[in-house]
């Protein structure tokens, strides 16, 4: 049985797709056969972030409707072995994802894969609920900013009441906080909520903190998940998060302002 991980947030633009791409890639890089599913029907974007947009032939809705098989539809990642992408449909029909249809696809994928990463659309409507319904584990992506934190709390409420695990009275969906676009300098100046602040409010375990970085935009420009940019702090922070997800103990990094050395101060870098 595969482990189903939903990447969710409520609010849009906080880094769900960036996170799905990097976490999925990180899991596959460690040898776990992984598929990332784009649940954002009508606003497909995972393909662009993964750099496989020109290889999309069929999509998730085609599979549900029996118009294509899974093996025809899954896109094999060119950089990371063991990694596959299931693109979202660009249809404007909001009800294209049926619960029974999604369940069948997840069951079929479960036979073959170790991890299924569900990239949720923004909001708390049907699409977002469908993405989290079958989850065993949730990565709640949050920015250190009031509206994102509030929306994350709402999503946690939905995970606790409307997921399949909640409805069946099974053990609850495992919740993980991933704080993205973190700027230690602004935190130090009292202009941004700190990790501790967000942890206090949401009261769920911290999976990782991804520092705000130019590398994220650069990676999406190039269609390569930022975790593969091993030089960048964001890439390293995602790598830590994947390790923690797999049970490894890793200290949180990039939470403090980088002190400039004498030379850097001299040249003003």
């Amino acid at each position: 049985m595969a482990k189903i991980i939903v990447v969710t947030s409520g609010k849009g633009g906080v880094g769900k797709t960036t996170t799905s791409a990097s976490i999925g890639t990180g899991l596959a890089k460690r040898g776990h056969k992984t598929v990332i599913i784009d649940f954002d029907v009508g606003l497909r974007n995972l393909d662009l972030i993964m750099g496989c947009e020109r290889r999309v032939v069929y999509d998730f809705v085609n599979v549900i409707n029996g118009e294509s098989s899974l093996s025809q539809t899954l896109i094999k990642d060119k950089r990371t072995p063991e990694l596959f992408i299931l693109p979202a449909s660009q249809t404007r029909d909001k009800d294209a994802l049926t619960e029974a249809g999604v369940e069948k696809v997840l069951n079929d994928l479960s036979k073959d894969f170790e991890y299924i990463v569900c990239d949720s659309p923004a909001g708390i409507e049907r699409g977002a609920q469908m993405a989290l319904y079958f989850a065993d584990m949730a990565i709640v992506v949050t920015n250190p900013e009031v509206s994102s934190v509030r929306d994350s709390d709402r999503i946690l409420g939905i995970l606790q009441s409307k997921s399949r695990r909640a409805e069946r009275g099974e053990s609850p969906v495992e919740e993980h906080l991933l704080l993205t676009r973190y700027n230690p300098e602004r935190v130090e100046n009292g202009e941004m909520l700190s990790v501790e602040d967000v942890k206090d409010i949401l009261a769920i375990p911290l999976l990782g903190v991804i520092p705000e970085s130019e590398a994220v935009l650069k990676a999406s420009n190039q269609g390569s998940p930022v975790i593969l940019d091993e030089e960048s702090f964001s890439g390293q922070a995602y790598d830590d998060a994947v390790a923690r997800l797999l049970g490894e103990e890793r200290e949180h990094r990039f939470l403090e302002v980088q002190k400039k050395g004498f030379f850097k101060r001299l040249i003003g870098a």
Partner: protein
Amino acid sequence: MSIFSYFRTQKKPSSASVAKERLQIIVAHERNKRTQPDYIEKMQREILQVIRKYVDISDDQVKVNLDNNDECSILELNVTLPE
């Protein structure tokens, strides 16, 4: 910047701590709403209508609260009647 303005800015709470305080209040409020059953809001409206048949009161003069303890739930109804 004068020496006085330096002291003044020190006293002002940082915007991050304002954010945290606001969030703690709104999140607690919304969680409370989430845990109470859906019918509470409708019941509150209907209780209000019944009371209004006899006295003229505004929406915020009736407070319905449901406390869940382990074994039982206590429904608390608080009506402020005008003098």
